[in-house]
């Protein structure tokens, strides 16, 4: 790569890509992108050097704020001007610096030789234009073709990305298509002019795991067929293991390690890369099976929930979120509910905790049916069941102090304010935060810290069951790992039962004793984590397992055992109390 001398600030030993100048399509040299004044750091991207070769998939990996997306946007000339701009470096496309080109020249390359697809397929298409017209627009802008030829090309492209009935689909508006289909349309659009380089900015992050698998396969197939160079941005090492030929790891706007995928994945050198890989959730072999004893703490029987949409003047539509859900959970057990979006997993959690009322079936908590309880009758039960929410930025009232937020439950149940606040401080220590946090407001904390606060709030009422609804899916992997460890530790020490709702089988595998797989409002399989992983019974479970990105890749042995439990010292006292 030869970037060690250009002053990129990266130790030369972590760059070991053999120089092969002929096939280099895009050569990014010392790219620096400045952020507006007052931002948390001066540069979003600092001295980043990367190369994309013909027939190569370069994965750029990093956590949020690492500058990976900014790098791609800078290359495409899509930075949000005038606030963010390139202040140094070059991006050479076949020897010509894109960044120094005039706008018209840049535009000719953009969409023609360099194409890009984005993270959010739901919003990346113009809602008022048919998908065919949107693809045709690219052709109109860059190629001399008559109307009939363009139409034919659109149909051909839609077929190439595996969309059904392209003749008809061409005339559809985006709102008619699913997320996966829209991402395929985006890919078709990007391929319209046979670009040399495809830049994909987290194209599968917003998709379900099975759809993600299909899109990854599609990208890999198209890349191979057309011998393109692909720059694939992701935060997920599983995805990297799935498709990368080369990997670049970014941290705080700098590129800290570049190398062939096989080497980086299995013998990472830079400490940050090692940290990221160690944090990738994975099935832990040596976990003991949970032994069920006595009566179940919670048992649901054929729970069902139907949503009715529409009003007086509209024909109501119904949405079945749950039918026939039956699960069981014992004291001390962690039960994972795994399913894709729309499977009804969150609805189940909300029915149990009484945020939604089930339409049918029974939810037996310590032998008492919660479905039949009125609002007032339900109130005493609230103490025993608590919830940890998904979005750390939405789950804390921005106008209340942390101490008040944690104390709100005990206060609502009649405890004195002073006593409740004192307890809140203890809980903050338990979750690894300083006691002084109690006097501060939510906006002063990071996502991971907020999730710790949420955990403390859930513990404040001494519940018997905790429902954790995707508690780490909004967090970066390294933080994810810490929060998961904390949860695991606390519920073990306090002997809590936990219902852990997640879309990610890998995370479930890491923390759950038992796993229930949900699909379209039903539990299709429920068994110990070990059985689900090693001996799946239901075809859908097998599909899900099959779709886990990077399943063929084993996390290097020396990184598997590293587990840090923050705040462990205070746990000892707490468990004794």
């Amino acid at each position: 790569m030869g970037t060690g001398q250009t002053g990129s600030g990266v130790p030369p030993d972590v760059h070991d890509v053999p120089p092969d100048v002929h096939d280099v399509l895009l050569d990014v040299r010392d790219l620096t992108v400045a952020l507006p004044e007052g931002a948390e750091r001066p540069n979003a991207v600092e001295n980043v050097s990367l190369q994309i070769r013909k027939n190569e998939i370069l994965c750029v990996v990093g956590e949020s704020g690492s500058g990976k997306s900014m790098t791609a946007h800078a290359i495409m000339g899509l930075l949000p001007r005038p606030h963010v701009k390139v202040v140094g470096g070059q991006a050479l496309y076949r020897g010509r610096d894109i960044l120094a080109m005039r706008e018209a020249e840049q535009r000719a390359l953009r969409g023609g030789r360099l194409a890009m697809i984005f993270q959010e397929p739901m919003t990346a298409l113009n809602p008022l234009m048919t998908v065919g017209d949107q693809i045709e627009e690219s052709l109109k802008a860059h190629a001399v073709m008559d109307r009939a030829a363009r139409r034919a090309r659109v149909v051909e492209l839609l077929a190439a990305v595996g969309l059904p009935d392209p003749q008809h689909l061409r005339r559809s508006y985006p709102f008619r298509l699913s997320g996966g289909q829209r991402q395929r349309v985006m890919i078709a659009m990007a391929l319209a002019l046979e670009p040399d380089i495809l830049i994909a900015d987290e194209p599968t992050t917003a998709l379900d795991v099975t759809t993600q698998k299909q899109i990854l396969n599609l990208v890999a197939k198209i890349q191979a067929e057309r011998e393109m160079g692909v720059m694939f941005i992701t935060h997920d090492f599983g995805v990297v293991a799935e498709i990368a030929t080369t990997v670049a790891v970014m941290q705080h706007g700098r590129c800290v390690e570049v190398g062939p995928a096989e080497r980086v994945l299995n013998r990472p050198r830079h400490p940050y890369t090692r940290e990221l890989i160690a944090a990738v959730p994975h099935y832990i072999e040596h976990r003991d099976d949970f032994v069920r004893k006595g009566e179940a703490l919670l048992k649901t029987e054929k729970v069902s929930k139907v949503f009715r949409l529409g009003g007086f003047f509209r024909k109501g539509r119904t949405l079945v979120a749950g039918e026939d859900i039956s699960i069981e959970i014992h004291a001390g057990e962690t039960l994972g509910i795994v399913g894709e979006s729309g499977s009804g997993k969150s609805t189940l959690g909300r029915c149990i905790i009484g945020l939604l009322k089930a339409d049918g079936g029974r939810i037996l908590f310590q032998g008492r049916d919660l479905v039949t309880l009125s609002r007032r009758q339900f109130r005493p039960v609230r103490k025993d069941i608590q919830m940890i929410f998904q979005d750390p930025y939405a789950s804390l009232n921005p106008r209340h102090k942390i101490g008040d937020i944690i104390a709100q439950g005990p206060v609502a149940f009649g405890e004195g304010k002073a006593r409740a606040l004192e307890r809140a401080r203890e809980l903050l220590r338990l979750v690894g935060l300083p006691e002084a946090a109690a006097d501060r407001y939510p906006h002063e904390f990071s996502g991971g810290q907020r999730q710790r606060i949420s955990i403390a709030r859930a513990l404040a009422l001494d519940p018997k069951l905790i429902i954790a609804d995707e508690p780490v899916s909004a967090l970066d992997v390294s933080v994810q790992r810490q929060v998961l460890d904390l949860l695991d530790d606390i519920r073990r020490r306090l002997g809590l039962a936990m219902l852990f709702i997640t879309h990610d089988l890998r995370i479930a595998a890491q923390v759950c004793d038992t796993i229930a797989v949900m699909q379209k409002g039903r539990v299709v399989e429920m068994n110990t984590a070990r059985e689900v992983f090693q001996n799946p019974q239901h075809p859908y479970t097998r599909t899900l397992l099959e779709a886990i990105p990077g399943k063929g890749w084993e996390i290097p042995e020396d990184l598997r055992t590293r587990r840090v439990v923050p705040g462990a010292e205070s746990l000892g006292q707490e468990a004794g109390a």
Partner: protein
Amino acid sequence: MAGIASFLGRRLIKSVFILLAIVVINFLLVRAAPGDPAMVMAGEAGAADEQYVEQLREQFGLDRPLHEQLGIYVAGVATGDLGHSYRQQRPVWDLILDRLPPTLILTGCAFVLALTAGILLGTLAAMNVGRWSDSAITVLALLSYATPIYWVGLMLILLFSVQLGWLPSFGYESIGAGYAGWDRAVDVAEHLVLPAVTLGLFYMAVYARLTRASILEVRDMDFVKTARAKGLSETRIVFKHVLRNAILPVITFAGIQAGHLIGGSILIETVFAWPGIGRLAFDAVLQRDYQVLLGIFFVTSVMVIVFNILTDLLYSVVDPRIEVA
């Protein structure tokens, strides 16, 4: 297509309900008007003897229970009977019908003017955000927004009629000039300029502000980034992608605002002696002619509903998603 039809069908049904509700409100207001209606009618007819009042009461069903009276009233409205103006000695419906065309011309012109100029100015401001043309348009919008329209009308008369003598200051056409055909149209148009501009100015400001804000919001959306990544020219991005999406909330708002526009015409017609419904309303206020006033309230409400259906139609042409909305 079926989706659009069902969307418009739903809107029509809703309009019928709103219409019914307005009739009921109207009825309640008629009853709330001061004095026993029969007494008032008798007084206005100039005959106040007990027997006549009793006869009137029976004739108009005022001796029946309230819900029956409501039924009679609704049936009356359905057949175009909006009551009788004893002051003018004519059915209210006839009075209004006479005055409807000038009002429709005035509000229609003002609306089209406000919408086109507003969208144009808003787009201009958004595309030059932060520069002097943006500031100028923003200030202009702010001022138009803060000025009472009747006062603007007076000041424009002062400038363009009294000082400069360019345009006529009042009326619908030159009385006694005996113009016909094309000449008459030109004459009416000259009279129309000041009132239409005055009425349109305020709404132009509203739409300009809204368009500007909407464009600035749409400009940051993902699909605009997609369009840019496709290498489209900036003009095409603005017109094909940004503007079309940005106009949707403006249309919605224009529909909601239709009622205000028609209300504003009362003031404008008063200032410019424009012989429309608004002017009729002003005279009715002066004479405390409640029957006429309530008739006007009803008719203007119907106008708003028609207006709303028109904007819904417009919307359904622009936005393919309405069928699921």
